[in-house]
C-alpha cells in the first residue's frame, strides 16, 4: 500500500496561563495517533501541559504574495498606537 499519511500541525501550551504555540508537525492516520505521536515527540521533557493537533489541510493561511496589499492598510494608521499622542510627561497617562 502506498497511501500517504496526512500531515498534522502540533500546538503546545507550555504552562497554564499561556497560549498554545505551534511547535512542529508530524504524520499520522487519525487524531488519536497524532496526539500520541505529538506527546512522544514534542513533550519528552515536560515542554507542555496541553496539546492541540490540527490537520494541516484544515489550516487556511494568508498568501505571502498578497502580503503587502493585505497587511498594508494598518501601516498608515499610526493613531492606533499610544505613542501617537502628545501628553504631558508628568501626568502618568
Amino acid at each position, binding site marked *: *500500500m*502506498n497511501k500517504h499519511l496526512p500531515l498534522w500541525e502540533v500546538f503546545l501550551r507550555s504552562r497554564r496561563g499561556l497560549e498554545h504555540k505551534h511547535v*512542529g508537525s*508530524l504524520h499520522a492516520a487519525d487524531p488519536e*495517533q497524532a496526539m500520541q505521536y505529538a506527546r512522544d*515527540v514534542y513533550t*519528552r521533557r515536560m515542554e507542555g501541559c496541553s496539546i492541540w493537533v490540527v490537520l494541516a489541510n484544515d489550516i487556511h493561511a494568508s498568501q505571502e504574495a498578497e502580503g503587502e496589499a493585505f497587511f498594508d492598510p494598518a501601516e498608515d494608521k499610526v493613531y492606533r498606537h499610544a505613542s501617537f499622542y502628545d501628553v504631558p510627561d508628568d501626568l502618568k497617562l
Partner: protein
Amino acid sequence: MEISSLEESRREAIFQARVDAEEKIEPKDWMPEAYRKNLIRQISQHGHSEVVGQLPEGNWITRAPTLRRKAVLLAKVQDEAGHGLYLYSATETLGIAREELMEQLLTGKAKYASIFNYPTLSWADVGAIGWLVDGAAIVNQISLCRTSYGPYARAMVRICKEESFHMRQGYEIMTVLARGSQEQKAMAQDALNRWWWPTLMMFGPHDADSAHSGSSMKWKIKRQSNDELRQKFVDQSVAQAQHLNLKIPDEKLKWNDERGHYDFGEIDWDEFTAVLGGAGPCNHERLEARRIAHEQGDWVRDAMFAHAEKQRQRDVRKTA
C-alpha cells in the same frame, strides 16, 4: 531581456536583500530553485544522519552495563529519532514528500553522515560517540541555529536544547572508564583512537574543496565554513581529552600561539571519500537495517489506515 526573466531577477534581488538583512525565509516565500534544492539536500541529509545515527548506539541498548546506562541510552536514541522527525518535517515544507525522502535514503541516492558507517565494537564506543560525535554535531548545529531558512533554524534550536545531554552522558561514560581499571582505560583510549579522525571528517571537505560552500554561504544556509567549525571542535576537545588523561591520536596536534588555535594533522581524505562512497565498514549493514525496519513497518502503517477508515465510517453512521 524578457519580462519573465526581469521579474525573476527582481524576485531574486528581494530574496537576497531579505537574507542579507538576517530575515528568515519562510516556506511560502519565493526562493531561487537552487536554494530550495540545496536546502532539500542538506536538511534531508541531516535528517537521515539522525535516523541512521540511531543504529550504532542502538546496538548497545540491550548490553548497557547498568539499568541507569540503559535508560539513558534509550532516551538518547529516542531523541535522535525525534531529531530525524524535526528535520524531515522541515524538509517537507520545501515541497518534497516524506515517502520520497525515505526512498532517496533507501536507494542510496541521499547521503547521511559517513561517521555512522563505523562499527561500535565496545561499550566505550558509546561513550566516545556521545562525547565526540554529538560534540561535533553540537558545534555544527549551534552555527546552523542562525541559518536563513526558518523551519530549519527552528528545528536546530529545538535540537540544540536536547543535544547537550547527549554529549554529557558520553563524557561521563568516558570519565568512568578512564578512571577505572587498566582494561577500562585501554578501552576508552581505543575508542578515542578509532573515533577521533572519523569525527573530524564529519565537518566535510576543506573549504577550498567544498562543492556547495560558495552559494551556501551567500544564501546564509551555512554560517561558518567547514574548516572554521572543525577548528572550533579541535580546540574544545583538547582540554576535554586531557581531563580524561587520554591521548588524542594525532602527533601533529600542537598549540599555535600565533593563530590562537591548535594545529592538527591532515585527515585521510581517501578514507573519507571511500566511506562516503559506500565502502565503509558498515555502509551495507546500516542501509539494510533501515530497509528491513521500513518493510517490517508496512503492516503497521496498513493497520493504521484501516483503523482510521473504520473509525471514520463509524462516525458517519453515528451522525446519519
